[in-house]
């Protein structure tokens, strides 16, 4: 019998926690993600230095006791700007993934439940949206509306829709073939009710895992867009923009190019490890073995 034989939810969560603690990658991922969120929240009320405090005499300083990560071209504190940049990354990515999942999951579930023409239309729409990587739609949107954080949210969000639609449809289709769904139809339940009561709960863990991975990808995409100047606009701090500014000063102040990149990498690494860990943890094949 499964080690999760006890049915109380609390026991199930305790079990997850015990197993999750055993995986170094999962713990690291969870830790980094928690840290990122904490830093972002703290930066809303406090940063070591005001993020926009220009201090020309002290510009391009290497890391010191006063400025832990040094100062930029205008003498602004790099650490403070990194902290504030986390807010920007999280906000853009969160909304973009929200758009992707919010539209993609219902579309995918609908395609799987209805089949036929509806499915055909949804999947064609998907194929077509895939032809526009976030950067390309961002290029289009920026060309017309001008650059800005909102545009990067829209561009990344649009590209996330087919990702979630595909995943949801694929996973739902295999569930629709299962006998317990047939049993629900014999019981007289309609397609919508079956989707809500059987399909979505059974793919929830899959979706959660995908969300963490897409969240990581969105952070990368946002950084890329703001690096190109198509995303978040100065003076608002963003990791991608900081790298852009650092590039021209590469030989003078290499530390400016190191820290924002490290911040992006560690964040994405943490989110990916968290996703992998969750996948192992929530995998029904592992959970239901008897």
């Amino acid at each position, binding site marked *: 019998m499964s080690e999760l034989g006890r049915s109380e939810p609390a026991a199930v969560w305790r079990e997850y926690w015990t197993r999750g603690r055993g995986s170094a990658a999962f713990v690291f991922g969870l830790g980094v993600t928690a840290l990122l969120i904490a830093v972002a929240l703290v930066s809303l009320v406090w940063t070591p230095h005001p993020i926009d405090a220009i201090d020309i005499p002290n510009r391009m300083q290497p890391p010191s006791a006063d400025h832990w990560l040094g100062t930029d071209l205008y003498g602004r504190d790099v650490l403070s700007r990194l902290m504030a940049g986390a807010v920007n990354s999280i906000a853009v990515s969160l909304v973009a993934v929200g758009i992707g999942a919010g539209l993609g999951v219902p579309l995918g579930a609908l395609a799987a439940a209805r089949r036929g023409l509806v499915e055909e239309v949804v999947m064609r729409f998907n*194929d*077509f949206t895939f032809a526009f990587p976030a950067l*390309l739609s961002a*290029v*289009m949107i920026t060309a017309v509306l001008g650059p800005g954080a909102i545009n990067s949210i829209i561009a990344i969000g649009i590209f996330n829709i087919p990702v979630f639609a595909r995943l949801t449809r694929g996973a739902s289709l295999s569930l629709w073939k299962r006998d317990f769904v047939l049993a629900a139809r014999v019981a007289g339940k309609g397609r919508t009710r079956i989707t809500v009561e059987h399909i979505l709960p059974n793919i929830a863990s899959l979706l959660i895992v995908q969300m963490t991975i897409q969240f*990581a990808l969105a952070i990368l995409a946002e950084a*890329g867009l703001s690096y*190109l100047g198509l995303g978040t606009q100065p003076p608002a701090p963003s990791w*991608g923009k900081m790298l852009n500014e650092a590039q021209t000063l590469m030989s003078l102040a*290499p530390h400016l190019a190191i820290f924002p990149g490290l911040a992006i990498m560690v964040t994405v690494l943490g989110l990916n490890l968290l996703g992998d860990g969750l996948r192992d943890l929530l995998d029904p094949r592992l959970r239901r073995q008897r």
Partner: protein
Amino acid sequence: MALFLLQRLTALVVTLLVASLVVFLVMEVLPGDPAAVMLGINARPDTLAALRQQMGLDLPAAQRYVLWLGGLASGDLGTSYTYGVSVWELVRERLGLSLPLALIAICLSTALAIPLGVLAAARRGRAADAGVMGFTQLGIAIPNFWFAILLILLFGVHWQILPAGGFAGWEAGAWPALKTLILPAVALALPQAAILARVTRSSVLETLGEDFVRTARAKGLTRSAALWRHAVRNALIPVVTIMGLQFSFLLAGTIIIENVFYLPGLGRLVFQAIAQHDLIVVKDLVMLLAAAVVVVNFLVDLAYAVIDPRLRGGRSYE
């Protein structure tokens, strides 16, 4: 097979048409007056009127769309407002850089990823597997433009063994030109290779668990013979899918990487066109890049049929 081809081709054409319609609507109808966008708010009325006429904005939208489509089909992409030359001319010139760059990057990432992925699967749970997986985690997490900056810092600024940016041009000879493409190609290829290696590993692992691999082992094939002769080809099916999807990321990547290295390619052209509000160029390029993605995914569909006989149709006794 012919029917399969025809179905795919129809889907391809429909997708391209829809894509062109969306690009057209976003670029020409949404902004209201594209000419005003291009010239900015301080434009003089007569310049505006001249541009409107040059862009054909006095015609109804439907007619402009049809004209544009016809132009795309016949290779007449219009004239760039800022460069004053035909867009097709610009594209051809820049393709000479972007296409080799993309091809080198794809070859590099495939050559790196598939052997690594298979190796990791074959040595599952051992040091080689852990090493490959660690490398891929880093490769996925590293932003490609930052990786490019680091490459420049090391190879271009610190050791000064490779150029830090710019393109020598093919007329300078193959080697000098290639030399300028090495760092950009590596920067493009590495994150792709990381993803591809992971997909290869999990696909091979899944195939290794299949009954027919056990059958091959029961025939007396060694573990590695069963792996290479039976598992790898079957495992390539999802790998090819991901390679197709990656192509769109690769295009996006070239836009960034060409900017990091100041390479005069298509990506940089798009970027510059935005900065100069040259909507004609932006519209055509976005369409071309989207079409490239669609066509590559069409080719991936065809590749399936080569790998998997079940998709080829043909007689069946069932």
